[in-house]
C-alpha cells in the first residue's frame, strides 16, 4: 500500500483539516468532530446534512456550500459515522426550520443516522430523512436490505439543496429529494480494487482481463466478475441495466453523471460519456445536463459508474440553480 498519507489512523481528520485550510471561504470543520459545515451559516432555511464513511471524496464535505449541503459527516474509511457525530452536525446547522438527513441506503448509515435523529428530536430539533438507493446492480427486494445509495446521491444533494436555498419548508425539501431518489439510477464497474489505509491491502483481486460489475462504493466486490470489455460495450451494459429498471424513451429528458471511482483518468470517463450521449440520442432521450468527473469515489479504485436522473421541469429547474461547493459549481 502506497499512499500520500501520514498515519492511517489520522487520514480522516487530516484530510478534513486540509479541506478546511484550502476552502475556508466555503466550509469549516467543527472542532473535535469529523464534520464540515458551511462557513457562512444561512439563517431561516431548512438545513441539509449528509455523510457516510470517508473514502468517497469529494463526497460529502465537497458538497457543503451554497445550494447543496449545510453539513457533512465523515466516518472512518468506508464506515458509517457514529450517531454523536451526526447529532453534532445537526445541531450546528439547524437554523430553526428543521434538518433533512440525506442517507445512503446501508444498514450502518441508516442505523447511525436514525439514532442521531432520535437524539436531535429529544433536543427539540425538527429532523426528517430520505434514503437514497440508486444502485441498480442489486435487485430491490423486500427481503433484503434493498438497493445501495451510490453516486446518484450527488443529484439528490443538488436538487434538495436548491429547494432549501429557495426557502422552502422541510416537507417540500423532502418531497423533491424523494422525487429525485425515485428517478435516479446508477450502475458501475471497477477495473481494480482499492486499499483502506488501516486495512493495508486491497479489498479484492482482479486478473488483468477482468472487471467487477455492479459494485458499490466501499471497495467491496461487485455482483460478479466479467471479462474486460471495450468502453462502449461497458456503457451499453450499464445503461441496459438502468433502462431495465427505469424504462425511458423518446421525449424523456435526463441529467447524466459519468462518475469516476477515483483512480480512473477523466479522459476515460469522457470516452464513456461519448457512448452514453450516443445511446441517449439513439433513444430520443434529451440530455439536459452532463456531469463527468470524480463525484463519489472509492479511494484510488479504477472504474466508473453511470447515473441517470429522469427530469421533469421541477427537477430540471432545481438542477440548474447555482451551487457553490468544492465538488460542484453551477
Amino acid at each position, binding site marked *: 500500500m502506497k499512499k500520500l498519507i501520514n498515519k492511517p489512523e489520522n487520514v480522516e481528520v487530516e484530510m478534513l483539516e486540509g479541506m478546511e485550510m484550502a476552502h475556508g471561504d466555503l466550509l469549516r470543520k467543527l472542532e473535535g468532530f469529523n464534520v464540515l459545515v458551511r462557513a457562512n451559516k444561512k439563517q431561516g432555511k431548512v438545513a441539509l446534512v449528509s455523510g457516510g464513511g470517508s473514502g468517497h471524496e469529494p463526497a460529502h464535505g465537497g458538497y457543503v456550500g451554497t445550494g447543496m449541503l449545510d453539513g457533512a459527516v465523515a466516518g472512518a474509511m468506508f464506515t458509517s*459515522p457514529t*450517531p454523536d457525530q451526526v447529532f453534532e452536525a445537526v445541531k450546528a446547522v439547524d437554523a430553526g426550520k428543521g434538518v433533512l438527513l440525506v442517507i445512503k441506503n446501508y444498514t450502518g448509515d441508516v442505523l*447511525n443516522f436514525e439514532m442521531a435523529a432520535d437524539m436531535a428530536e429529544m433536543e427539540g430539533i425538527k429532523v426528517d430523512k430520505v434514503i437514497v438507493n440508486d444502485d441498480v446492480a442489486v435487485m430491490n427486494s423486500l427481503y433484503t436490505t434493498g438497493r445501495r445509495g451510490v453516486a446518484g446521491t450527488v443529484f439528490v444533494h443538488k436538487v434538495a439543496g436548491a429547494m432549501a436555498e429557495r426557502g422552502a419548508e422541510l416537507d417540500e425539501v423532502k418531497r423533491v429529494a424523494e422525487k429525485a431518489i425515485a428517478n435516479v439510477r446508477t450502475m458501475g464497474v471497477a477495473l481494480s480494487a482499492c486499499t483502506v489505509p488501516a486495512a493495508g491491502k486491497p479489498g479484492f483481486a482482479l486478473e488483468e482481463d477482468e472487471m467487477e460489475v455492479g459494485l458499490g462504493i466501499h471497495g467491496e466486490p461487485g*455482483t460478479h466478475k466479467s471479462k474486460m470489455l471495450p468502453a462502449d460495450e461497458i456503457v451499453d451494459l450499464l445503461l441496459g441495466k438502468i433502462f431495465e429498471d427505469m424504462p425511458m424513451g423518446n421525449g424523456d429528458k435526463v441529467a447524466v453523471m459519468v462518475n469516476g471511482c477515483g483512480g480512473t483518468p477523466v479522459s476515460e470517463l469522457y470516452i464513456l460519456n461519448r457512448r452514453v450521449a450516443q445511446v441517449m440520442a439513439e433513444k430520443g432521450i434529451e440530455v439536459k445536463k452532463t456531469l463527468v468527473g470524480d463525484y463519489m469515489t472509492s479511494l484510488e479504485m479504477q472504474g466508473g459508474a453511470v447515473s441517470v436522473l429522469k427530469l421533469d421541469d421541477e427537477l430540471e429547474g432545481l438542477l440548474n440553480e447555482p451551487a457553490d461547493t468544492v465538488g460542484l459549481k453551477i
Partner: protein
Amino acid sequence: MDGQVFKKLLEEIAEKIKENRQFLTDLDQVIGDGDHGINMDRGFSKVLEKIPSMPDDVSMCMKQTGMTLVSTVGGAAGPLYGTAFMKAGDAIKGKEEVGVGEAILMMDAAIQGVMKLGKATTGEKTMLDSLVPAYEALKECLEAGKEAKVCFVEAVEAAEAGVEYTKTIIATKGRASYLGERSIGHQDPGATSSLVILTVIRDFLA
C-alpha cells in the same frame, strides 16, 4: 460475578478483539467492505480506556460499554453491538451479583435488541447466527441443570456451528447481501466477532 470481576472479563474481550482485528477485517474484505475488525477494535480500545472510570456495577458497565461502542464503532456493527450491550445491561438493572439466570436474561435482551434494530432474524448471515444458537444452547443446558461453565462450553460450540452455518447461506442482511450467491462459502464477520466474545466468556469461566 460482581462488577469488579466483570471488568476483568470486559478487558479480556477487548484484548481478544484486538488480537482478531486483522482476521475479522480479512473476513469482511471478502464479503463486505473490510472494516469490521478495525471498527470493533476501535470501539473496544475505547471501552478498555474507559473501564477504570466505570462504576463497579455489571449493569452500568454493560450500558456504558454499549454507549461507547455506539459512539466509536460506526458502521452496522456499532449500533447493533452497542444496542446489544445496552439492552443486556438494562435487563439486569439493580442486580449486584450476576449468575447464570442473569446471563440468560442479558443474552435474551441483547438478541431482541439486535433483531429489532437490525430488522433481522437467524439464517440471514449475521451475528444473530452465532448469538441465537449460543443462547439456545446455553438456556437448554442450564435448564437441564448442568454447570454454568459446561453450559458455556456448549454455547460456544453452538456459536461455532452457527459461524460454520453462515458459510452455507446467502446473506440477506448487511453488505454481504449485495453479493448474492457470491457470499456463499464465506463466514460472516459479525457472527465471528460474536463467537470471539462468547469464547472469551467461556474461557473466563473455565
